[in-house]
């Protein structure tokens, strides 16, 4: 096994709940310093897998390793390697963020000097510096989620495990947490994040693992997986209003299909091929004297792949 390169290794992982198989012989490896989106519909086994990885559940069969340590065999050593946000954790309402981080930091053996410095840093990272001395009992869900992320990165773990970190948050809370995720991506963490929000995954993840009914459907780099489908969805905004005549002309361009108007001067299309085909399309659009304002890949490619795989696995 290559634990040096793969800090998270899941082997034949199975979890049964009273006859219901939530995770079914799951095999997965997560590469070091990658940001992996763990995708699947509700009830697909994402959270169960994450709970086994964080020792909140015991596997019925199979093994999960964190930095080469079997979580079920030696949870203390395995969990020392990770920071985690599972579901929507609740906090002790009588503690402030600083005290909560001190509690968890002391349990992890961070020295007092480092603890003070790191607490300041992580609370800055999650934009909670104004609330350091307020008791968490009064915090909103979004604020609690930010403190949850702060505690997960407090000890600078090599692995971060996040379970739907934006779940249940209002749009502002989602935006704030997503900003933090983008910030984390710039650092040296290996991040394993479950989500069913495809745009979120496409925005922050390098790789995805798709799961349904507890089984892995596909995994790999986002670009490769969507490219493997030889299909990408593009959204194009123009100065000119898009008329039927324009649609007729655009539909005749190379590799274009499923052309639709998405607004007065916006249209979306599917393009067979990769980056070269996309660059060629832009040239051809200019060739038609169409004034393109924006030309971007929409999250639809991943969504398309996701939906087709989920449908296949039913």
């Amino acid at each position: 096994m290559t634990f040096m390169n793969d800090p998270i290794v899941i082997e034949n992982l199975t979890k049964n709940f009273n006859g219901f198989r939530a995770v079914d012989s799951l095999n997965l490896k997560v590469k070091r310093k990658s940001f992996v989106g763990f995708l699947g519909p509700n009830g697909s086994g994402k959270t169960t897998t994450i709970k086994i990885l964080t020792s909140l559940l015991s596997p019925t069969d199979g093994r999960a390793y964190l930095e080469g340590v079997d979580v079920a065999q030696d949870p203390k050593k395995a969990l020392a390697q990770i920071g985690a946000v599972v579901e929507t954790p609740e906090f002790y309402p009588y503690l402030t963020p600083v005290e909560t981080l001190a509690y968890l930091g002391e349990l992890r053996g961070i020295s007092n000097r480092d603890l003070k410095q790191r607490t300041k840093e992580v609370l800055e990272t999650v934009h909670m510096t104004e609330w350091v001395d307020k008791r968490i009992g009064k915090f909103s869900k979004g604020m609690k989620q930010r403190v949850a992320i702060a505690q997960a990165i407090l000890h600078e773990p090599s692995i971060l495990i996040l379970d739907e970190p934006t779940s249940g948050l209002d749009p502002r809370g989602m935006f704030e947490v997503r900003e933090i995720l983008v910030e984390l991506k710039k650092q040296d963490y290996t991040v394993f994040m479950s989500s069913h929000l495809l745009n979120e995954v496409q925005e922050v993840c390098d790789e995805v693992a798709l799961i349904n009914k507890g089984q892995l459907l596909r995994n790999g780099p986002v670009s490769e997986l969507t490219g493997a489908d030889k299909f990408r969805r593009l959204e194009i905004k123009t100065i000119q209003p898009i008329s039927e005549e324009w649609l007729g002309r655009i539909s005749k361009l190379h590799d274009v299909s499923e052309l639709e108007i998405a607004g007065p001067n916006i249209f979306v299309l599917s393009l067979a091929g990769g980056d070269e085909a996309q660059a060629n399309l832009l040239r051809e659009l200019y060739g038609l004297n169409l004034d393109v304002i924006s030309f971007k890949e929409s999250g639809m490619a991943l969504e398309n792949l996701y939906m087709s795989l989920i449908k296949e696995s039913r």
Partner: protein
Amino acid sequence: MTEIVTKNRKKIVTTLPSDIDQVGVVVKYDILKYLRSRRLLGMIAIETLVLLLITALPPLLGHQYSSNADSFINTYASFVTILVVIGATLFAGDAIVSEFQSHTGFLLFPNPVKRWVLLTGKFIASMGAMFLVLFIYYGVALGLGLAITGSFSTLGAESLLLAMLYAVAALAVGYLISSVMKGATGALILTFALFIFILTIVSQLLTLGGVIPWFLVNFAGGVIGYITEVPYPTSSTGNPGGGPGFTMNTYVPDVGVSIAVMVGYIIVALVLSYFFFKRREMVA
């Protein structure tokens, strides 16, 4: 030892503490919980009320205080078991189950801490809160006894020790209930009802049937009050009304047996509590 160097060159060195050190951390923050929660304050308020009533009522009703220190303390000691039950309910009833029900377990359990460490730390903190309540209660009672009778009740001090042992046994049973129950409210109610109603009823039924309920922890707890009586009372069987077929049994727990029973409850309840807590999964 884990060494991680971040991009900003700051180096965090973490040495995973020993299990014993982690117990200390859990104790520290659970005691902080009790100090900040209204439960400890409420408990102290209740015992203040009990102390006021016991101290103020006799003169108000025209009775004189006993001039004997042991006899003086006896009235106070006879109410301790109720205080202990309230304390066990507040400090143990939901200690474990609340981590699951209120989802704080999602924060705590993914940390590198063994379940027995959490259980031990929480239990020691609960003991600390309970002992604080008992020290205040006995401190005031023994102090009043000294002031009023002019002598210190050594039997009162023995009663305190037995009360502490009973408190630990009650807490252990509370932790067992908390480890098994799904809801915090149910755990709190069951802990209270078990000592106040269920065990009391069982104990009285057994007594009526002529069976000495020496194995029941609430019966064993009776020694807290009896120890301050001089001489130590003895069990008796009689027919006070003189009617046919009616026999009244009065059983007094033996001190040695009661200590053994309480220790037994502590060990069994804590072992079972650990067993259930360790196996318990954070399902929802």
